[in-house]
């Protein structure tokens, strides 16, 4: 049995102030099991009374080696792991992975598949924001918000289940299109959501936006300027709440986002309150996109017919020799992607979700790197935490909207 290693202040003395060494300020662990750290995040706080002097995040508790594991699997099998990264945005992760593979092997995606991808990605953004709204409000002691948000989220998870058979880890978007077409009940279910949810957002706003308790806890807390955000690599709603209009759906449209009419909400303040408002408005815009996409949902195939890369439909396997061979080859050894590397980024609910994919010409990714937005967003927390109270830090963590699976990969 080896000796137990003691971690002392000595190891971290370059990160804390002089006063921590002399014992004048207190070092306190927040997490990894603290309920308001939204997962297994550990913050080492240096406190002067109740004021945070320094904040040292410690991550990696949820590290699962997804990148290493993906290198050992064929492209189709590796995709299943992508859901598990940011488990609040599984469809977005599938989309990023599939689009990177499509770019690498040069696959075309039919229009119907692209529209369904957009609908599902926006519904996922909506449900991710719902979870954020519920938990962030819960951190500020608004208990009922949590219950309302999770009630609504069920409707979206039902749609996911209807399409893919899974509520969260869908793997519904595949390189070259979708797993299969949506069922007939899909449209009615999404229309139902479109009918009900706008009213619900109004209710959340009525409950929170001008609530004096909420204003006290969030106004002017955790401020970041636009330049600081960019320098820290902060993207997504946090960047837009600091006044910078940057959204990859508008800046570099993918999957047909250029056809839809929607706004990018921004706020100049850059505090926790601004992040609340930006995300609430984003939920409205998501519904707008879903409505437009559903109204002009084209008919046609949902998978590319390039059978070198995309498995043929089940109906053909029984009658066509080639289809059977393709099916067999794809599910035993996979397809060989040409040598080269691509980087593709999509807008996840948290910011720029990028996939760096390098191929050595074989059936497995030689290297895959996930540029996850939470990793960079979380990095700005020592800056925001300086000089705030511990209770404010809880509000700040909530406003970043971290998903620890996304941070630790």
């Amino acid at each position, binding site marked *: 049995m*080896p000796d137990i*290693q003691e*971690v002392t202040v000595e190891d971290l003395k*370059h*990160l804390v102030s002089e006063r921590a060494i002399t014992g004048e300020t207190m070092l306190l662990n927040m997490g990894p099991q603290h309920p308001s750290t939204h997962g297994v995040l550990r913050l080492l706080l240096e406190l002067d009374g109740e004021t945070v002097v320094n904040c040292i995040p410690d*991550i*990696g508790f949820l*590290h699962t*080696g997804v*990148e*290493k*594991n993906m*290198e*050992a699997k064929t492209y189709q099998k590796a995709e299943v792991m992508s859901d598990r990264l940011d488990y609040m945005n599984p469809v977005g992760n599938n989309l990023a992975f599939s689009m990177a593979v499509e*770019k*690498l092997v*040069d696959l075309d995606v039919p229009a119907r598949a692209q529209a369904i991808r957009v609908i599902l990605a926006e519904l996922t953004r909506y449900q991710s924001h719902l979870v954020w709204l519920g938990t962030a409000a819960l951190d500020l002691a608004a208990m009922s918000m949590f219950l309302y948000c999770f009630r609504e989220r069920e409707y979206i998870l039902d749609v996911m289940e209807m399409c893919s058979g899974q509520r969260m880890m869908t793997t519904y978007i595949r390189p070259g299109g979708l797993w299969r077409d949506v069922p007939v009940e899909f449209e009615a279910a999404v229309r139902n959501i479109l009918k009900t949810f706008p009213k619900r957002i109004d209710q959340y706003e009525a409950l929170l936006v001008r609530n004096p308790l909420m204003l006290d806890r969030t106004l002017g807390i955790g401020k970041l300027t636009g*330049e600081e955000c*960019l*320098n*820290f*690599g*902060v*993207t997504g709603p946090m960047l837009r709440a600091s006044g*910078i209009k*940057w959204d990859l759906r508008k*800046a*570099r449209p993918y999957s047909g986002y250029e056809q839809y009419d929607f706004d990018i909400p921004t706020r100049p303040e850059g505090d926790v309150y601004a992040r609340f408002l930006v995300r609430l408005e984003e939920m409205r815009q998501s519904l707008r996109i879903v409505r437009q996409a559903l109204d002009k949902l084209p008919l046609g195939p949902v998978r590319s017919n390039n059978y070198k890369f995309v498995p043929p439909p089940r109906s053909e396997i029984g009658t066509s020799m080639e289809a059977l061979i393709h099916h067999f080859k794809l599910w035993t050894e996979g397809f060989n992607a040409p040598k*080269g*590397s*691509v*980087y593709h*980024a999509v807008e996840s609910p948290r910011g*720029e979700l*990028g996939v*760096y994919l*390098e191929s050595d010409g074989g059936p497995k990714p*030689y*290297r895959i*790197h996930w*540029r996850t937005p939470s*990793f*960079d967003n979380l*990095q700005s927390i020592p800056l925001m935490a300086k000089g705030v109270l511990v209770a404010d830090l809880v509000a700040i963590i909530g406003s970043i909207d971290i998903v620890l699976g996304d941070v*630790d*990969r």
Partner: protein
Amino acid sequence: MDKQLQPIIEELEKDFGVSATESLGEVSLVLPAEKIVATCQRMQDLGFELLSALTAVDYWPEEQPRFHVIYEFSSVSKNLRLEIRLPVRGINPTIPTVSHIYRNANWRERELWDMFGIKAEGHPDLRRILMPADWEGHPLRKDYPLGYEEPQFTFNFEEINLRKPYAKD
């Protein structure tokens, strides 16, 4: 190639001796490792405010170069993207840190050290970030095994337990 990108690449080619390649619609520049700090400074002046990603690829058993360190830059004001690749040699390479220019490089360089064993010279806080502090080896290197645990049943539990590696043994 984007028309706006052309003058930027020409400028970088002239001042830093980079070589540009374009494949699959993406432009990447290859740069010697010692010039990365000056280049990053220039990139920021050229309007690339965002360091989107910083990662590496291991070409083991190749050693000249063994790794490519990859920087993905984004420009929010001009809506551009550019990739810079840094070939580094040897088994325990070092690169100069850019964490004072792009502050999110701080954690990303810690991740490089943790996962690949590429040291960022001049980094203010070079500790492991995702793996435990007492971990040995760098998991994303190609000569690091993927890891496989033999399933233990009642009949062979003791036998496997004897040869099973535990952390910090």
